[in-house]
């Protein structure tokens, strides 16, 4: 819904882009220095049991109509060997959170302007936000890998599956001979449950079905034994029966390799099945986080409650589905109070203040709401 207040004069727009360029140039200049001392990006984990810690991460997009705060102070952590599900509607910043971790946000428009993302590589702990490009390149693929949503578009259509897998393995294991690389590629294809692995090695992506392509993507992500797998909507483009196959595969592989998974999805069912911990995001902020049991059995934030109620569940018949009234606030012009206040049913006197702080309900369960006790 466009409002008349969205209108920006040409003069105003020019002023914003000039200002944006000044800010982004400054950040880019800092990033592109020749020799960045290690002390700037090597840190310590707060809890050695964690694989990744997000600490007040802020990723903004400096667009010509204003600054979009896609991720605005997100804090959570991914423990080693566990699965963390990030849920939220489209545009709530869940994908940008994962892209910030990989430092794949479209620069120079998108910049991580604050906070720390600490990633434990096993030897060193690296603060991804300040790490130079060269360090990041070694981290991506080797230590963290991403499975994208669209298996159709993330494979290169003009190369054979084998060549695409080989390329990655050869790049990350430079000491391997050609034969070893090929053997490893075929082994990886076998591991993700492709029966005809030698045949698929020689095929082009268009010869495979959606489920098979997603398996190839998973094989590619796993080929370098990453510590963290980021799965960005891995099953959204797939059918239910194929989705069940892929989720089953991910679960099995996780227990075999022992890596952590960051699962980004909008499907509450998938999260309930896969995740140990759940993070619920709304308009660039974490509104509630806790174990899967905390979130699904005892949701406290009105947004989480609304989200659960609006999803039709097989076997529970209702006359009318619940729907959250109103819509998400304009990302360019966020209110200075609780972002959910205008859509909230339990909103009261207390909610008039600034954006609520995270309230600790138990050791694992946190919620950003003034009235977490109300149901």
């Amino acid at each position, binding site marked *: *819904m*466009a409002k008349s207040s969205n209108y920006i004069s040409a003069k105003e727009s020019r002023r914003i882009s000039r200002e944006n360029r000044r800010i982004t140039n400054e950040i880019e200049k800092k990033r592109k220095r020749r020799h960045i001392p290690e002390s700037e990006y090597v840190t310590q984990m707060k809890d050695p049991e964690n694989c990744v810690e997000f600490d007040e991460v802020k990723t903004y997009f400096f667009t010509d109509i204003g600054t979009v705060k896609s991720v605005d102070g997100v804090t959570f952590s991914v423990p080693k060997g566990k699965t963390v599900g990030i849920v939220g*509607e*489209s545009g709530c910043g869940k994908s940008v959170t994962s892209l910030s971790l990989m430092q794949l946000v479209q620069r120079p428009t998108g910049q991580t302007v604050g906070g720390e993302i600490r990633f434990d590589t096993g030897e060193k702990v690296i603060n991804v936000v300040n790490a130079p490009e060269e360090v990041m390149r070694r981290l991506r693929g080797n230590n963290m890998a991403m499975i994208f949503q669209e298996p159709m578009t993330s494979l290169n259509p003009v190369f054979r599956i084998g060549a695409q897998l080989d390329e990655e393995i050869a790049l990350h294991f430079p000491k391997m001979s050609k034969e070893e690389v090929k053997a490893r590629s075929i082994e990886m294809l076998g591991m993700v449950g492709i029966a005809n692995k030698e045949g698929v090695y020689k095929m082009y992506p268009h010869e495979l*079905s*959606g*489920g*098979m392509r997603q398996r190839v993507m998973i094989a590619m992500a796993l080929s370098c034994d990453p510590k963290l797998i980021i799965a960005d909507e891995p099953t959204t483009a797939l*059918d*239910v*029966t*194929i*989705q*069940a*196959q892929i*989720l*089953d595969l991910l679960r099995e592989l996780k227990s075999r390799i022992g890596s952590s998974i960051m699962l980004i999805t*909008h*499907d*509450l*069912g*998938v*999260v*309930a*099945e896969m*995740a140990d911990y759940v993070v619920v995001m709304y308009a660039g902020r974490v509104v509630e986080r806790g174990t*899967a*049991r905390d979130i*699904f*059995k005892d949701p406290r934030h009105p947004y989480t409650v*609304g*989200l*659960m109620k*609006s*999803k*039709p*569940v*097989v*076997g529970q*018949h*209702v006359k*009318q*589905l*619940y*729907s*959250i009234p109103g*819509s998400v606030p304009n990302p360019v012009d966020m209110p200075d109070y609780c972002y959910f206040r205008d859509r909230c049913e339990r909103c009261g006197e207390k909610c008039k203040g600034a954006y609520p702080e995270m309230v600790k309900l138990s050791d694992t369960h946190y919620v950003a709401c003034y009235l977490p006790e109300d149901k």
Partner: protein
Amino acid sequence: MENEIVVEVKNLKKYFPIKGGFFGGVTSEVKAVDDVSFSIPAGTTMGLVGESGCGKSTTGRTILRLIEKTSGDIFFKGEDVSAMDKNKLRELRTKMQIIFQDPYSSLSPRLPVGEIIGEAVREHKLVEKAEYQDYITKVMKDCGLQPYHKDRYPHEFSGGQRQRICIARALALNPDFVVCDEPVSALDVSIQAQIINLLWKLQEERKLTYLFISHDLSVVEHISDSLGVMYLGSMVETGKTSDIFAEPLHPYTQALFSAIPMPDPDLKKDRIILEGDIPSPANPPKGCKFHTRCKHCMDCCKEVAPEMKDVGGGHCVCCHLYDK
């Protein structure tokens, strides 16, 4: 509830030719819809579920004659749709409408919303010129749009609002029968609920009949009265939604239902995970089409295609397991 049948489909077949060879002749056929029959009583919703490529959308579009059928019969209120001439079909167009899946690509970016909704109304001369503007405003209000949206363009709207425009466009012609081709799959959960509620409300107010095509079983369970499960162009199970969900009979339906992820972390179900992918519809397996992935596969399944059998109460299943 009235028992008048609005839409009846008998042995519908749609084969798409595959051209190839030196002279570009027809080398083989994709059997997109292969012998599908069902009927929808007035004021009810029939759900059509199945995986992608199983022919759900083709069925919906063939009923509307957006695609010409290969063989079979389609009746709309007792009239044969496929035998209609141009003028008759033009009249019929106002009675049967479709809502497409993707609200981002099914609206013309160059037309204002009022024009998108009103174009067909004007073309079919459904209302007097003087009442035209009021009529459009009323339709928009019914679908949850504000009258001042009339002069806006589709790009100014969010996904949910756009889907409302699509619904308003279909309903402006005052149809009796609407094909909803995955109307909510491109939308977020909370928006999904709004659109489903809207479809419900409109059905009650206008006594609409829906054919609701979707791959999301939980949505289908909520909206439809009867259900058809399709696999590789054929119907494998039909019946009342409550019956099928209470006791799915066909092995494919059982697998499909067990694959639904439930939003409950304590629930650990015994999942039936199907092996492999759907076979190509250009070259479907002999005998029962599902036998390549079925765990109850018997010898006869590989040779003889099963027939549709009524197992009681209008619950029909197409499987050799229920041969008596």
